[in-house]
Protein backbone atom coordinates (compact mmCIF):
# COMPACT_ATOMS: atom_id res chain seq x y z
CA UNK A 1 0.00 0.00 0.00
CA UNK A 2 1.39 3.42 -0.85
CA UNK A 3 1.86 6.00 1.85
CA UNK A 4 -0.52 8.85 1.07
CA UNK A 5 0.53 11.04 3.99
CA UNK A 6 1.77 14.54 3.14
CA UNK A 7 5.53 14.99 3.42
CA UNK A 8 7.11 17.90 5.23
CA UNK A 9 10.77 18.88 5.43
CA UNK A 10 11.85 20.68 8.61
CA UNK A 11 15.02 22.72 8.19
CA UNK A 12 16.40 23.95 11.51
CA UNK A 13 19.83 23.71 13.11
CA UNK A 14 18.45 23.17 16.64
CA UNK A 15 17.87 19.47 17.36
CA UNK A 16 15.38 20.23 20.13
CA UNK A 17 13.33 22.46 17.84
CA UNK A 18 13.25 19.83 15.10
CA UNK A 19 12.06 17.32 17.66
CA UNK A 20 9.34 19.70 18.88
CA UNK A 21 8.03 20.40 15.37
CA UNK A 22 8.28 16.77 14.37
CA UNK A 23 6.12 15.77 17.35
CA UNK A 24 3.54 18.41 16.41
CA UNK A 25 3.35 17.28 12.79
CA UNK A 26 3.47 13.54 13.34
CA UNK A 27 0.59 13.84 15.79
CA UNK A 28 -1.41 15.14 12.79
CA UNK A 29 -0.32 12.33 10.53
CA UNK A 30 2.29 14.14 8.45
CA UNK A 31 5.49 12.39 7.39
CA UNK A 32 8.49 14.36 8.52
CA UNK A 33 12.06 14.60 7.26
CA UNK A 34 14.73 16.85 8.71
CA UNK A 35 17.67 18.92 7.52
CA UNK A 36 20.18 20.82 9.66
CA UNK A 37 20.69 23.84 7.38
CA UNK A 38 19.63 25.30 4.05
CA UNK A 39 22.25 23.46 2.09
CA UNK A 40 21.18 20.07 3.40
CA UNK A 41 17.57 21.15 2.87
CA UNK A 42 18.17 21.83 -0.82
CA UNK A 43 19.94 18.52 -1.18
CA UNK A 44 16.94 16.66 0.28
CA UNK A 45 14.49 18.58 -1.91
CA UNK A 46 16.46 17.61 -5.00
CA UNK A 47 16.35 13.93 -4.18
CA UNK A 48 12.87 13.47 -2.65
CA UNK A 49 9.50 15.08 -3.16
CA UNK A 50 7.80 17.10 -0.44
CA UNK A 51 4.54 18.96 0.04
CA UNK A 52 5.95 21.67 2.31
CA UNK A 53 9.21 22.95 3.79
CA UNK A 54 9.35 24.62 7.20
CA UNK A 55 12.55 26.61 7.44
CA UNK A 56 14.30 28.55 10.20
CA UNK A 57 16.04 31.82 9.31
CA UNK A 58 19.20 31.83 11.42
CA UNK A 59 21.27 28.78 10.57
CA UNK A 60 24.96 28.10 9.93
CA UNK A 61 26.26 27.22 6.45
CA UNK A 62 23.11 28.38 4.65
CA UNK A 63 20.47 30.54 6.31
CA UNK A 64 16.74 30.39 5.56
CA UNK A 65 16.64 33.46 3.32
CA UNK A 66 19.51 32.26 1.13
CA UNK A 67 17.83 28.86 1.00
CA UNK A 68 14.58 30.44 -0.20
CA UNK A 69 16.29 32.44 -2.93
CA UNK A 70 18.14 29.35 -4.13
CA UNK A 71 14.95 27.29 -4.10
CA UNK A 72 12.91 29.84 -6.04
CA UNK A 73 15.58 29.97 -8.75
CA UNK A 74 15.27 26.22 -9.41
CA UNK A 75 13.04 24.77 -12.11
CA UNK A 76 9.38 23.95 -11.73
CA UNK A 77 7.84 22.16 -9.97
CA UNK A 78 10.54 22.26 -7.26
CA UNK A 79 10.68 26.06 -7.24
CA UNK A 80 6.98 26.29 -6.41
CA UNK A 81 7.18 24.26 -3.20
CA UNK A 82 5.31 26.05 -0.37
CA UNK A 83 7.70 27.31 2.30
CA UNK A 84 6.76 28.31 5.82
CA UNK A 85 9.42 30.46 7.46
CA UNK A 86 9.89 30.32 11.24
CA UNK A 87 11.97 32.80 13.18
CA UNK A 88 12.42 34.42 16.56
CA UNK A 89 12.72 37.78 14.76
CA UNK A 90 9.36 39.58 14.78
CA UNK A 91 10.32 42.84 13.04
CA UNK A 92 8.48 43.98 9.88
CA UNK A 93 11.79 44.18 8.00
CA UNK A 94 12.50 40.52 8.82
CA UNK A 95 9.10 39.46 7.52
CA UNK A 96 9.52 41.61 4.40
CA UNK A 97 12.92 40.04 3.69
CA UNK A 98 11.43 36.55 3.93
CA UNK A 99 8.48 37.51 1.75
CA UNK A 100 10.63 39.02 -0.98
CA UNK A 101 12.86 35.92 -0.93
CA UNK A 102 9.76 33.87 -1.66
CA UNK A 103 8.26 32.77 1.67
CA UNK A 104 4.60 31.74 1.58
CA UNK A 105 4.10 32.54 5.22
CA UNK A 106 6.04 33.64 8.29
CA UNK A 107 5.50 32.40 11.83
CA UNK A 108 7.24 34.01 14.81
CA UNK A 109 8.69 31.63 17.42
CA UNK A 110 7.55 30.46 19.93
CA UNK A 111 4.99 28.59 17.82
CA UNK A 112 2.31 26.47 19.45
CA UNK A 113 2.30 22.89 18.23
CA UNK A 114 -1.36 23.13 17.17
CA UNK A 115 -0.67 26.34 15.24
CA UNK A 116 2.19 24.74 13.32
CA UNK A 117 0.06 21.70 12.47
CA UNK A 118 -2.78 23.93 11.32
CA UNK A 119 -0.59 25.97 8.95
CA UNK A 120 1.01 22.77 7.70
CA UNK A 121 -2.43 21.43 6.85
CA UNK A 122 -3.33 24.64 5.01
CA UNK A 123 -0.21 24.61 2.84
CA UNK A 124 -0.37 20.88 2.19
CA UNK A 125 -3.96 21.26 1.02
CA UNK A 126 -5.18 18.85 3.66
CA UNK A 127 -7.02 21.40 5.78
CA UNK A 128 -10.64 20.37 6.22
Amino acid sequence: MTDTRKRILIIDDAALVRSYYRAALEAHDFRVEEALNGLEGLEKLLSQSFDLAIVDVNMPRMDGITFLKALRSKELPLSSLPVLVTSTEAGPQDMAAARSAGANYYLVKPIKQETLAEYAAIFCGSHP
Partner: protein
Amino acid sequence: MADPPPLTTEEFSRLVEFLYRRTGMVFTEAKRYYVERRIAERMAAMSSPSFADYFVHLRGEERKEVEELINAFTVNETYFYREDYQLACLTTDLLDARVKTKRPGDAIRIWSAPCSTGEEPYSIAIWLLENWKDVDAYEIEIVGSDIDTDALEAAAEGIFGRRALMRLSPDLIARYFHQLDDERWQILDDLRQSVSFSRVNLIDTRQTRAQGGFDVIFCRNVLIYFDDESRRVAAENLYDNLLPGGFICLGHTESMSRISPLFEICRYSDAIVYRKPLELSA
Protein backbone atom coordinates in the same frame (compact mmCIF):
# COMPACT_ATOMS: atom_id res chain seq x y z
CA MET B 1 33.96 -13.70 42.05
CA ALA B 2 36.53 -14.59 44.69
CA ASP B 3 36.58 -12.66 47.93
CA PRO B 4 38.35 -9.33 47.54
CA PRO B 5 41.86 -9.20 48.97
CA PRO B 6 41.83 -7.53 52.37
CA LEU B 7 43.85 -4.32 52.31
CA THR B 8 46.05 -3.44 55.25
CA THR B 9 45.07 -0.31 57.14
CA GLU B 10 47.96 1.50 55.50
CA GLU B 11 47.06 0.33 51.98
CA PHE B 12 43.45 1.30 52.54
CA SER B 13 44.38 4.79 53.63
CA ARG B 14 46.83 5.27 50.74
CA LEU B 15 44.11 4.30 48.31
CA VAL B 16 41.33 6.45 49.77
CA GLU B 17 43.75 9.38 50.00
CA PHE B 18 44.55 8.91 46.31
CA LEU B 19 40.84 8.80 45.43
CA TYR B 20 40.16 11.84 47.54
CA ARG B 21 42.85 13.91 45.85
CA ARG B 22 41.59 12.89 42.42
CA THR B 23 37.84 13.11 42.91
CA GLY B 24 36.99 14.80 46.20
CA MET B 25 35.08 11.67 47.21
CA VAL B 26 35.63 10.44 50.75
CA PHE B 27 35.68 6.75 51.66
CA THR B 28 35.99 5.83 55.33
CA GLU B 29 36.67 2.46 56.99
CA ALA B 30 32.90 1.96 57.05
CA LYS B 31 33.07 1.65 53.24
CA ARG B 32 35.93 -0.83 53.32
CA TYR B 33 33.98 -3.68 51.71
CA TYR B 34 32.77 -1.43 48.88
CA VAL B 35 36.32 -0.18 48.29
CA GLU B 36 37.91 -3.63 48.41
CA ARG B 37 35.44 -5.09 45.94
CA ARG B 38 36.19 -2.42 43.39
CA ILE B 39 39.92 -2.67 43.88
CA ALA B 40 39.70 -6.43 43.37
CA GLU B 41 38.06 -5.80 39.99
CA ARG B 42 40.78 -3.39 38.93
CA MET B 43 43.59 -5.63 40.17
CA ALA B 44 42.14 -8.54 38.20
CA ALA B 45 41.85 -6.38 35.09
CA MET B 46 45.49 -5.31 35.45
CA SER B 47 46.66 -8.81 36.44
CA SER B 48 48.23 -7.34 39.54
CA PRO B 49 49.24 -9.98 42.08
CA SER B 50 49.20 -7.57 45.01
CA PHE B 51 47.88 -4.16 45.98
CA ALA B 52 51.44 -2.83 46.08
CA ASP B 53 51.92 -3.95 42.50
CA TYR B 54 48.63 -2.41 41.43
CA PHE B 55 49.31 0.86 43.19
CA VAL B 56 52.49 1.30 41.14
CA HIS B 57 50.26 1.83 38.09
CA LEU B 58 48.40 4.61 39.87
CA ARG B 59 51.48 6.25 41.30
CA GLY B 60 53.07 6.12 37.87
CA GLU B 61 50.17 8.34 36.73
CA GLU B 62 49.06 5.86 34.12
CA ARG B 63 46.20 7.96 32.84
CA LYS B 64 44.12 5.09 31.56
CA GLU B 65 44.21 3.16 34.83
CA VAL B 66 43.55 6.24 36.96
CA GLU B 67 40.49 6.85 34.78
CA GLU B 68 39.35 3.22 35.09
CA LEU B 69 39.75 3.35 38.85
CA ILE B 70 37.65 6.51 39.10
CA ASN B 71 35.04 4.95 36.81
CA ALA B 72 34.85 1.94 39.14
CA PHE B 73 34.13 4.16 42.13
CA THR B 74 31.44 6.37 40.68
CA VAL B 75 27.78 5.55 41.24
CA ASN B 76 25.69 5.47 38.11
CA GLU B 77 22.33 4.42 39.43
CA THR B 78 19.66 6.78 38.16
CA TYR B 79 16.55 6.96 35.99
CA PHE B 80 14.52 9.34 33.82
CA TYR B 81 12.35 11.97 35.53
CA ARG B 82 14.05 11.41 38.88
CA GLU B 83 13.07 14.18 41.32
CA ASP B 84 10.82 15.60 38.65
CA TYR B 85 9.46 18.30 40.96
CA GLN B 86 12.65 20.16 40.09
CA LEU B 87 11.93 19.78 36.39
CA ALA B 88 8.49 21.21 37.10
CA CYS B 89 10.17 24.11 38.88
CA LEU B 90 12.44 24.60 35.87
CA THR B 91 9.54 25.18 33.49
CA THR B 92 7.12 26.94 35.85
CA ASP B 93 9.57 29.38 37.43
CA LEU B 94 13.27 29.22 36.65
CA LEU B 95 13.25 29.60 32.87
CA ASP B 96 10.67 32.37 32.96
CA ALA B 97 12.95 34.26 35.34
CA ARG B 98 15.93 33.68 33.08
CA VAL B 99 14.28 34.74 29.83
CA LYS B 100 13.39 38.11 31.34
CA THR B 101 17.05 38.98 30.82
CA LYS B 102 17.13 37.67 27.25
CA ARG B 103 15.80 38.22 23.75
CA PRO B 104 14.14 35.49 21.68
CA GLY B 105 16.84 33.54 19.85
CA ASP B 106 19.35 34.01 22.69
CA ALA B 107 21.07 31.02 24.24
CA ILE B 108 19.77 29.29 27.35
CA ARG B 109 22.41 27.01 28.80
CA ILE B 110 21.56 24.16 31.17
CA TRP B 111 24.20 22.00 32.84
CA SER B 112 23.69 18.53 34.24
CA ALA B 113 26.72 17.74 36.39
CA PRO B 114 27.23 14.95 37.12
CA CYS B 115 25.13 13.49 34.32
CA SER B 116 26.04 9.81 34.82
CA THR B 117 24.77 7.78 31.85
CA GLY B 118 22.60 10.60 30.48
CA GLU B 119 19.24 10.08 32.16
CA GLU B 120 19.19 13.56 33.66
CA PRO B 121 20.18 15.72 30.66
CA TYR B 122 17.86 13.73 28.37
CA SER B 123 15.08 14.06 30.96
CA ILE B 124 15.58 17.81 30.83
CA ALA B 125 15.30 17.77 27.02
CA ILE B 126 12.11 15.69 27.06
CA TRP B 127 10.63 17.73 29.88
CA LEU B 128 11.25 20.96 27.96
CA LEU B 129 9.65 19.55 24.80
CA GLU B 130 6.61 18.47 26.77
CA ASN B 131 6.23 21.37 29.17
CA TRP B 132 7.85 24.59 28.00
CA LYS B 133 5.92 26.71 25.53
CA ASP B 134 9.01 28.71 24.52
CA VAL B 135 11.13 25.68 23.66
CA ASP B 136 11.60 26.79 20.05
CA ALA B 137 12.16 30.45 20.83
CA TYR B 138 15.58 30.16 22.47
CA GLU B 139 18.82 28.47 21.56
CA ILE B 140 18.71 25.79 24.23
CA GLU B 141 22.01 24.17 24.99
CA ILE B 142 22.08 21.21 27.37
CA VAL B 143 25.47 20.02 28.55
CA GLY B 144 26.02 16.79 30.49
CA SER B 145 29.30 16.36 32.37
CA ASP B 146 30.71 13.59 34.48
CA ILE B 147 34.05 12.40 35.80
CA ASP B 148 33.32 8.84 34.64
CA THR B 149 34.30 8.37 30.99
CA ASP B 150 32.47 5.01 30.67
CA ALA B 151 29.28 6.71 31.83
CA LEU B 152 29.80 9.53 29.30
CA GLU B 153 30.29 7.06 26.50
CA ALA B 154 27.05 5.30 27.44
CA ALA B 155 25.27 8.65 27.72
CA ALA B 156 26.27 9.66 24.21
CA GLU B 157 25.00 6.34 22.90
CA GLY B 158 21.66 6.88 24.65
CA ILE B 159 20.60 3.25 25.13
CA PHE B 160 18.56 2.50 28.24
CA GLY B 161 16.97 -0.46 30.00
CA ARG B 162 13.54 -0.88 31.51
CA ARG B 163 14.63 0.34 34.94
CA ALA B 164 15.93 3.67 33.66
CA LEU B 165 12.60 4.31 31.92
CA MET B 166 10.32 3.17 34.75
CA ARG B 167 9.02 6.68 35.53
CA LEU B 168 8.16 7.52 31.91
CA SER B 169 4.70 6.82 30.52
CA PRO B 170 4.40 4.34 27.62
CA ASP B 171 3.35 7.31 25.49
CA LEU B 172 6.58 9.24 26.23
CA ILE B 173 8.69 6.16 25.61
CA ALA B 174 6.94 5.56 22.28
CA ARG B 175 7.47 9.13 21.17
CA TYR B 176 11.08 9.72 22.25
CA PHE B 177 12.74 6.29 22.00
CA HIS B 178 12.94 3.47 19.56
CA GLN B 179 12.95 -0.04 20.89
CA LEU B 180 16.04 -2.09 20.04
CA ASP B 181 14.94 -5.36 21.64
CA ASP B 182 12.89 -6.61 24.60
CA GLU B 183 15.03 -4.83 27.17
CA ARG B 184 16.66 -1.87 25.45
CA TRP B 185 15.49 1.45 24.07
CA GLN B 186 17.54 4.11 22.29
CA ILE B 187 16.65 7.78 22.58
CA LEU B 188 15.86 9.49 19.24
CA ASP B 189 18.72 11.07 17.29
CA ASP B 190 17.39 14.61 17.66
CA LEU B 191 17.45 14.27 21.43
CA ARG B 192 20.91 12.74 21.39
CA GLN B 193 22.08 15.68 19.30
CA SER B 194 20.44 18.18 21.66
CA VAL B 195 22.80 17.25 24.53
CA SER B 196 26.58 17.57 24.43
CA PHE B 197 28.76 15.63 26.84
CA SER B 198 32.10 16.48 28.44
CA ARG B 199 34.36 15.03 31.10
CA VAL B 200 34.53 17.32 34.11
CA ASN B 201 35.78 16.88 37.66
CA LEU B 202 33.76 19.32 39.78
CA ILE B 203 36.68 20.10 42.07
CA ASP B 204 39.01 20.90 39.17
CA THR B 205 38.53 24.62 38.60
CA ARG B 206 40.33 24.60 35.27
CA GLN B 207 37.92 21.97 33.94
CA THR B 208 34.76 23.58 35.29
CA ARG B 209 35.76 27.02 33.93
CA ALA B 210 36.10 25.58 30.44
CA GLN B 211 32.35 24.84 30.45
CA GLY B 212 31.37 28.53 30.46
CA GLY B 213 28.38 30.24 32.08
CA PHE B 214 25.03 28.53 32.64
CA ASP B 215 21.49 29.70 33.32
CA VAL B 216 20.56 26.61 35.33
CA ILE B 217 22.75 23.90 36.84
CA PHE B 218 21.48 20.55 38.09
CA CYS B 219 24.03 19.20 40.54
CA ARG B 220 22.20 16.46 42.33
CA ASN B 221 23.44 13.84 44.76
CA VAL B 222 27.14 14.28 44.23
CA LEU B 223 28.17 16.76 46.93
CA ILE B 224 27.12 14.16 49.51
CA TYR B 225 30.14 12.10 48.48
CA PHE B 226 32.55 14.96 49.17
CA ASP B 227 34.10 16.14 52.42
CA ASP B 228 33.67 19.74 53.59
CA GLU B 229 36.71 21.07 51.78
CA SER B 230 35.91 19.48 48.39
CA ARG B 231 32.30 20.52 48.81
CA ARG B 232 33.34 24.12 49.29
CA VAL B 233 35.62 24.02 46.23
CA ALA B 234 32.87 22.41 44.13
CA ALA B 235 30.33 25.02 45.32
CA GLU B 236 32.68 27.86 44.39
CA ASN B 237 33.33 26.31 40.98
CA LEU B 238 29.58 25.95 40.39
CA TYR B 239 29.09 29.54 41.47
CA ASP B 240 31.65 30.66 38.87
CA ASN B 241 29.82 28.61 36.24
CA LEU B 242 26.51 30.38 36.87
CA LEU B 243 25.51 33.52 35.02
CA PRO B 244 24.36 36.30 37.38
CA GLY B 245 20.81 35.39 38.42
CA GLY B 246 21.38 31.76 37.36
CA PHE B 247 19.99 28.88 39.41
CA ILE B 248 21.36 25.69 40.87
CA CYS B 249 19.27 22.67 41.86
CA LEU B 250 20.69 20.17 44.36
CA GLY B 251 19.40 16.75 45.43
CA HIS B 252 16.47 16.84 47.83
CA THR B 253 18.57 15.87 50.84
CA GLU B 254 21.26 18.44 50.13
CA SER B 255 21.51 22.02 51.30
CA MET B 256 23.77 24.69 49.87
CA SER B 257 23.37 26.81 52.99
CA ARG B 258 25.54 24.34 54.88
CA ILE B 259 28.23 24.50 52.23
CA SER B 260 28.55 28.04 51.01
CA PRO B 261 27.12 31.49 51.79
CA LEU B 262 27.50 32.64 48.18
CA PHE B 263 23.99 31.70 47.02
CA GLU B 264 20.52 33.11 47.70
CA ILE B 265 17.79 30.64 48.65
CA CYS B 266 14.72 30.76 46.40
CA ARG B 267 11.56 29.01 47.46
CA TYR B 268 9.20 28.19 44.60
CA SER B 269 6.00 26.16 44.72
CA ASP B 270 7.69 23.04 43.36
CA ALA B 271 11.15 23.20 44.89
CA ILE B 272 13.78 25.09 46.82
CA VAL B 273 16.68 26.15 44.61
CA TYR B 274 19.71 28.41 44.98
CA ARG B 275 20.56 31.46 42.95
CA LYS B 276 23.67 33.43 42.17
CA PRO B 277 22.74 37.05 43.05
CA LEU B 278 22.07 39.37 40.13
CA GLU B 279 23.88 42.29 41.73
CA LEU B 280 27.18 41.23 43.15
CA SER B 281 27.89 43.00 46.40
CA ALA B 282 31.44 44.22 46.79
